[in-house]
């Protein structure tokens, strides 16, 4: 049975009709036009569908859209409204991504991680991004960009 849900996406209040069996990632991409979260494994392993739900990174492939009534979602589109963030600039500088498929999820996970742990060790960075798989770069440039920006953060 269709239900209209209202949620905040990147600071904007949006309403959308959903069925109970609609998965959030598809509603975001196909009904709301938010294309940065990617469809990957669809079972919570790869992290390409990562979004921030009320500020915390979660898998949008493991959430029913109908659960999101009244919730707040942030994606990379919202993060970069005023241009690239310092982390994103470091990703560019280090050539961290090749195909870019993992970049939105990786960016959200790393952004949130650095908020909580501004000066992490390499080990802590590796643990933080363990759930965001990258098949191009072998992680080296991603980890180095995160460490690089963390050394400049106050």
């Amino acid at each position, binding site marked *: *049975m269709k239900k209209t849900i209202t949620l905040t996406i990147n600071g904007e209040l949006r309403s959308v009709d959903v069925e109970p069996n609609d998965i959030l990632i598809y509603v975001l991409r196909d009904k709301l036009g938010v294309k940065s979260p990617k469809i990957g494994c669809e079972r919570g392993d790869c992290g390409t569908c990562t979004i921030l739900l009320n500020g915390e990174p979660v898998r949008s492939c*493991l959430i029913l859209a109908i659960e999101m009534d009244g919730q707040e979602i942030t994606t990379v589109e919202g993060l970069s409204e005023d241009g690239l963030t310092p982390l994103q600039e470091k990703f560019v500088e280090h050539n961290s991504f090749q195909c870019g498929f993992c970049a939105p999820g990786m960016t959200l996970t790393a952004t949130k991680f650095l908020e909580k742990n501004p000066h992490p060790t390499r080990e802590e960075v590796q643990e933080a991004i363990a*759930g965001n798989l990258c098949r191009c770069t072998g992680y080296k440039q991603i980890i180095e960009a995160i460490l690089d920006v963390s050394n400049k953060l106050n």
Partner: protein
Amino acid sequence: MAIAHEFEYFKPESLKEAINLAAKFGEKGRPLAGGTDLVVKINDEIEFPDAVIDLKGIDELKKLELKDGKLFIGPLVTFTELINSPVVRDKFPLLREASGTVASSGVRNRATLVGNICSAVPSLDSGTPLLVYQAEVLVKSKDGERTIPIGEWFTGPKKNALKPGEIVVGVTIDEITGKQGGCYVKLGRYRGEDLAQVGIGILSLENNEYRIAFCAVGPVAARAEKIENLLNGKELTDEIIGEAKKLVPEEISPIDDIRATGEYRMHMAEVMLVRGLKEATARLNGEGTEYGTSVI
């Protein structure tokens, strides 16, 4: 693209309402907490519920507190909340250590401990700490409530003692009164997110008491009573650890699957038991590594 199977969605605002829905739908009603298992199961056409009952509107199920020596973990408490809880860190360090190995941070932000035991896969990371802390599962239905010791909860691979119409309303653990040293040893194919190929939770207590549980090496996570009986009351010497190691094949029955062979699992279970026992006991004596440091 939606999930192929169609179902109704309910978000009750009170436990009473949720229990009424559970009674109405019985086996065809599935409570939803984090959804990290349930959404996959419905999407994979392993489960076909008529009704999904979202518990997230019920505040009392979010409770995580230590009261009168008992830790209460509500069914909406996520692994991230457990890891961040000062009470869990100080009083139940083994539970915290094991929680930190569940999947990845993005999954732990949604996945709940109660959901983990309800899914009851043999490799569940929360199983061994709950077994050695001797947790109890509280369930409610229209007919009343009952308490199930965690040792009787796991009834088979992906099976638990919950009956149709019942909802888990919490897990409780009694505080350990004396000193404790814990160690959760998890073997995965690589570091980072993976299911356990072998898992051992060990609690080393005062007066040479040892509690040991295995996961991923039998149909259910379970205590290793023969090994415990051998060790209890004895100082850990290399000799006694060697004897304990010999009992491992009597305690577990690992199978070959996509993640490891039974033979490899058996060998590693022995290695992990030895290292875990030493580490848990070192931590008891204030000499071990920090919790979260892997011994393999």
